[in-house]
């Protein structure tokens, strides 16, 4: 902080005190002004920014404590230091309780005064820096990559908004590639824990012992190769969120350990005896039928009920085809930017193929298809032949009648335009009357 930017206001009815302190702070290079009573001080508060106020406790008219109250009502960030003639403990305690930063007794030790001012300014700088970082985090995390406005995905987002500010355990369910981790991130980023880490554990990718060490950490020498003490993901998630992906794949022993740590928020590192506490929120995800796994005995019933508190089901892409075009354009922009290519859009045939595909690999498959298409495309548009072969084979081998394709395409265009008949007719290159006929013919109804 530049000293010229620091404003100090001295409020005292004694001229000699105002002069001495003003001079002292002026020699430091601070911007300093003084006021001989509380009313004048309040006036100066309106006209300038102040970091610190030194206020005499005893003044005619409004006293220092009353002035402190008035300042704190409107300017919480100003550090008010109370000056007292005598070290009266009760008055000093009252001043501190009422929000004063500190109190000093007259005469003031110059060394103490210098350190006090330095300390206040350092704290104010840290608070400012903290706010700047928080703003940066909010800006970075504010835009989630959840694309789509189909009723299905809007329902999911409603649930995300509802549960995010709470500490409730969330179970995200959905097929592979539907974006379970994105939903977990969206919940974390909208929660008060967003300034702390979101720690992901892929439970399906590890063996029993490795997962145990990954979750709880280990002490040095606890097993062959454990050369150092290592913190586990549960410990690292302290203050934040622990995202347990593919929780359905956890072995029975780790299920038991996990249940205990979720319930008590306490654990021990592998090979350790120290009980460690960690404050974390749990979000789980699975593509398995956990109810069936409970019936089979491969998943503990108590853990199931513990983690299945607030289930969110992400629909597969085939049941929200209205989002395919938006997602395709989003990924197109993402990869054209990344590859520095100039591809403007999709040909009608390409879009028809994208809409007609069943997307068994969901959004992940769509993303990969667009990435590939951007790589192979040489012109301004993505053509049907740029799409992966298996997709085209699947769409042509489906053996659907022309009428089925027409029905589906009209349905999708209507969904995309929000049932705007004129725009839909224009996209379909037919007149409005024909479109009404088709709607009637296929029995299409607006989904409100």
């Amino acid at each position, binding site marked *: 902080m530049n*000293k010229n930017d620091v404003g100090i206001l001295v409020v005292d009815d004694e*001229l*000699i*005190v*105002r*002069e*001495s*302190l*003003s*001079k*002292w*702070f*002026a*020699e*430091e*290079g*601070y*911007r*300093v*002004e*003084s006021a001989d009573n509380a009313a004048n001080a309040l006036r100066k508060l309106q006209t300038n920014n102040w970091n610190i106020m030194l206020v005499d406790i005893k003044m005619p008219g409004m006293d220092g404590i009353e002035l402190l109250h008035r300042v704190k009502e409107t300017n919480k960030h100003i550090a008010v230091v109370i000056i007292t003639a005598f070290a009266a403990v009760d008055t000093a305690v009252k001043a501190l309780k009422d929000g004063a930063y500190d109190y000093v007794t*007259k*005469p*003031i*030790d*110059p*060394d103490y*005064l*210098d350190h006090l001012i330095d300390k206040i300014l350092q704290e104010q700088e840290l608070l400012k820096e903290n706010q700047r970082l928080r703003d940066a985090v909010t800006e970075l995390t504010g835009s989630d990559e959840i694309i789509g406005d189909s009723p299905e995905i809007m329902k999911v987002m409603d649930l995300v908004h509802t549960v995010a500010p709470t500490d409730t355990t969330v179970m995200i369910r959905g097929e592979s590639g539907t974006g379970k981790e994105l939903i977990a991130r969206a919940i974390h980023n909208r929660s008060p824990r967003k300034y702390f880490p979101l720690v992901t554990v892929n439970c399906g990718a590890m063996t029993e012992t490795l997962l145990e060490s990954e979750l709880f950490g280990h002490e040095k020498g606890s097993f062959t190769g454990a050369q150092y003490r290592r913190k586990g993901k549960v410990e690292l998630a302290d203050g934040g969120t622990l995202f347990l992906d593919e929780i359905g794949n956890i072995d029975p022993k780790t299920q038991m350990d996990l249940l205990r740590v979720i319930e008590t928020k306490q654990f021990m590192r592998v090979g350790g005896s120290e009980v460690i506490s960690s404050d974390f929120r749990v979000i789980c995800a699975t593509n398995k039928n956990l109810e069936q796994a409970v019936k089979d005995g491969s998943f503990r019933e108590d853990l199931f009920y513990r983690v299945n508190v607030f289930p969110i089901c992400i629909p597969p892409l085939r049941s929200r085809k209205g989002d395919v075009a938006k997602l395709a354009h989003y990924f197109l922009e993402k990869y054209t930017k990344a590859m520095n290519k100039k591809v403007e859009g999709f040909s009608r045939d390409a879009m028809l193929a994208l809409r007609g595909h069943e997307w068994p690999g969901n959004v992940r498959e769509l993303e990969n298809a667009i990435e590939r298409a951007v790589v192979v495309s040489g012109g301004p548009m993505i053509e049907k032949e740029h799409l992966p072969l298996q997709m085209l084979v699947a769409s042509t081998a489906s053996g659907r009648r022309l009428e089925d394709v027409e029905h589906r395409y009209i349905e999708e265009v209507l969904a995309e335009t929000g049932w705007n008949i004129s725009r839909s007719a224009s996209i379909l290159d037919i007149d409005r009357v024909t479109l009404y006929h088709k709607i009637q013919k296929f029995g299409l109804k607006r989904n409100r």
Partner: protein
Amino acid sequence: MKAIELQPLGDAEPDVLESICPALQDAFKVPAKVRSGSIPLSSFYDVQRGQYNSTAILHQLSPFLSMPRTGAILRSNSDIHIVGVTQRDLFMPILTYVFGEAALGGDAAVVSYHRFRNELYGLPPNKDLIIERLRKVTIHELGHTLGLVHCTLQYCVMHAASYVEELDLKGHEFCPFCRSAEARVLHSI
């Protein structure tokens, strides 16, 4: 500033004042001398505090001085800058003690070497150290008379020091930033 004059106050030892003159000449490139005769300090004594009021002494040294109430920097027209030197303890009314006080941008300063004596801290006497400390504080206060404010660089003579250990840590020269500010002021006067 064209010259520096050291004014003995009370029982200040003339040889101590004489011994810092070369350093002042070196620092500001102007002649420095000790005034003959001493100003008595009794009228500045505060019986309750057992100390001498530095602000009042400053007004005595520079009678036309109007002290800044808003931290504004004065602009001195005087060619001679006076530094009163005493071995008695000084205070500014709101502070417990000061090593010195200057009129920021004015033409007068006052310094005390009372607290520079090692005996105060249970150490053997060391007159060289007293002179070394006095030299730093006098250059520092004269820096204030040129309008310089405290410097954040610890080695710079304009770095604030409110106890002797801190004073011993800093140097007796201006850092390049303060040196250029000082040169600008000296040339503009």
